[in-house]
């Protein structure tokens, strides 16, 4: 009996955790191509910075991928795979010019990294190839997803609760909707430019 009493709370706790981890799925419409959907900051709650690094490449005078979503505190490595010189800079983060930054120059095959500690939209640019552009969306929570090209998305492991969920697309106006997550939850967004 004693043994049963010890195991039962663990099982119940595990089951209850699973029961409260929901999913947000849906579709972003009104725009074409990849969008990003993320859960806005949750009052009083912080999240540990991810330890895994994310890489964005510069190849063929293009940033790859064009859209990257990361959680707050993620370190992004910028790789130059081209035989020409590039740089990476962003004039602001979500319009805050104080958060603009220029990483300088580095040769082919080398990387420079940056830890994004401020949430928002980061417009990546190269100051010698003005046609190059990419976006890093720094989500304030670890709950985010990049849609497929049709706009479909799915965010897993979102604890049940009430959130503000934002959809972003290049050149479109952001849209934030309140979403009450209870298990498998649907949330659609229609964006316009």
């Amino acid at each position: 009996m004693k043994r049963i009493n010890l195991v039962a709370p663990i099982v119940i706790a595990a089951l209850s955790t699973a029961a409260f981890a929901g999913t947000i799925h849906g579709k972003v419409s009104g725009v074409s191509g990849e969008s990003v959907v993320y859960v806005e900051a949750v009052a009083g709650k912080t999240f540990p910075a991810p330890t895994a690094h994310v890489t964005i490449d510069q190849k063929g005078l293009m940033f790859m991928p064009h859209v990257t979503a990361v959680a707050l505190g993620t370190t992004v490595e910028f790789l130059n795979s081209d035989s020409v010189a590039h740089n990476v800079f962003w004039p602001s983060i979500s319009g805050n010019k104080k958060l603009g930054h220029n990483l300088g120059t580095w040769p082919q095959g080398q990387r420079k990294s940056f830890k994004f500690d401020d949430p928002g939209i980061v417009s990546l640019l190269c100051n010698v190839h003005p046609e190059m552009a990419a976006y890093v969306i720094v989500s304030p929570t670890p709950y985010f997803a990049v849609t497929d090209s049709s706009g479909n998305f799915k965010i897993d492991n979102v604890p049940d609760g009430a959130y503000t969920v934002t959809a972003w697309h290049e050149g479109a106006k952001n849209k934030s909707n309140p979403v009450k997550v209870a298990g498998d939850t649907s949330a659609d967004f229609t964006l316009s430019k």
Partner: protein
Amino acid sequence: MMRKRLSLLFLAGFVALSLSPSAMAIPAFSRRYGTSCTTCHSDFPKLNDFGKAFKDAGFKFPKDDESFLKQPPTLLGAPAQAELWPHTVYPGSIPGQLPVGLRYNTYYQQIGANRNNFNQVLPAGTVGNFIPKSDFQPGYFSIFTAGSMGTGISWWVDDDISVAGANANGALGDGYLKFNDLSRFLKLPKDSLNLRAGQFELDLPVSQARTWNLSGWDIFSEQNVGIQNGLGPAQNVTNGSAMEDAANGVEFSGGHAYGGYHYSFAVFDQNTTGVNISPPNIGPQNAVAFNSDANFKDMYGRLAYRFNLEKDPVSRNDVQAAGTTGPRDHTYLTLGSFYFYGRTATPFSGVLADGVTPAVLTAREPFYRIGGDVNFNYRTLNVFGVYLAAHDRNELPVTAPGAAGITSFAPSSPVTFSGGFAEADYLALPWAMTIMRWDQVKSSADRINFIEYNPASPPGSSFFSPYSATRNRFTPGEQFLIHANIKTSIEYQIMPQQIVYNPATGAVITGPFRTNALIVGLEFLY
């Protein structure tokens, strides 16, 4: 002579005649690589260091060109066909889409209030030339195409459709095929030997045909025409060659424009049409003159060395310097020199040594142009200058005692001119460049030729002259990129002082005055 006249009319205020028609960048490359004009140009058509390397490489990216192509080339034979050569045509390629670019420009000019003072030399009641105070003028519509054929062969053809002339004066500009890096077949250092053939601008320290200024540099358009009147010593030189003229021939070159050595050597002619360009400037007037003696090819050579001044050796030797905020043009100092050697031919109707038998006698007058140049760049400030000295042998016709005409020629004092320019370009913003220029041409013949009114000239061609033998021009300017392919330019030309003389007495009618001009240009490429 016509061109000489035009260059002097320029002084009088026909500014549009001197506007450079051939400034261009290549939108086809933007399409081909999916990149902005600013990848190669700082203020089109001025090349940045990467643009210079792109051009050096035969209009290709210096490394891994294929990885940057957004439009795959069309193969003219599979690359593996090369193994069958010489039993098959060697495989090449052409751009996947027709690499054509188009350019149009238009101008507005405003000329000084005393612009019509020249007419005071005309008899009362004579209608003279009218130079408007302000004037909108159409510019040039140009087509140009350039690219790589693969296997190290590149080409360039540009043509100003709406005007007549050549190169900096319109019409067909450069039209050549270039064999890049022939050195690889001879196991020489990379890019140490290239060959181009066709029509091309000489390898000038800075290109007149592709200048970014609204008006070209005066020294490159200067021709050497000896004194035509009795106010100076007799000079039998009518050399229509100008440094800006297009050359037809072949050119060997090597090195890089973005660092280290650069050389070129061209063998060419400039006029094999057989058409006389003017009457000679000394009697008898029954001769024809050619730009150059087609059977004696002209030669031009240039040698320059560019010192990139970055401390870091990797950055110093790379195509672009590694700046703290991104790649940029090197800080550099270029020192160069050039030498042009040619020979004019002026046939005269004369007689043989017997003094009676008619014959054609040709005065062959070797000439040379020699000069040096310096170019310094620090970040976005570029200062450069050119000095040139010209020298033409002067062969005067000699009539033997008792002969019925010219029997020979005898050398006399050479006909010379010299001068150059200095210019500072400051790219204050990536889209705004401030320019300060100073041009100088020192030619005693220029002054004396036009110090006296020539009654033989048709009415309306009133003569005038620079106030002194040295012709200076200061030209501040500003250029703005509206977009990477649209530019507006402003230039204020502070002209030399001029005088109008009485044709009969030589007395001064109008004292020194200026015909300064403001020019605004708008051009776009697509």
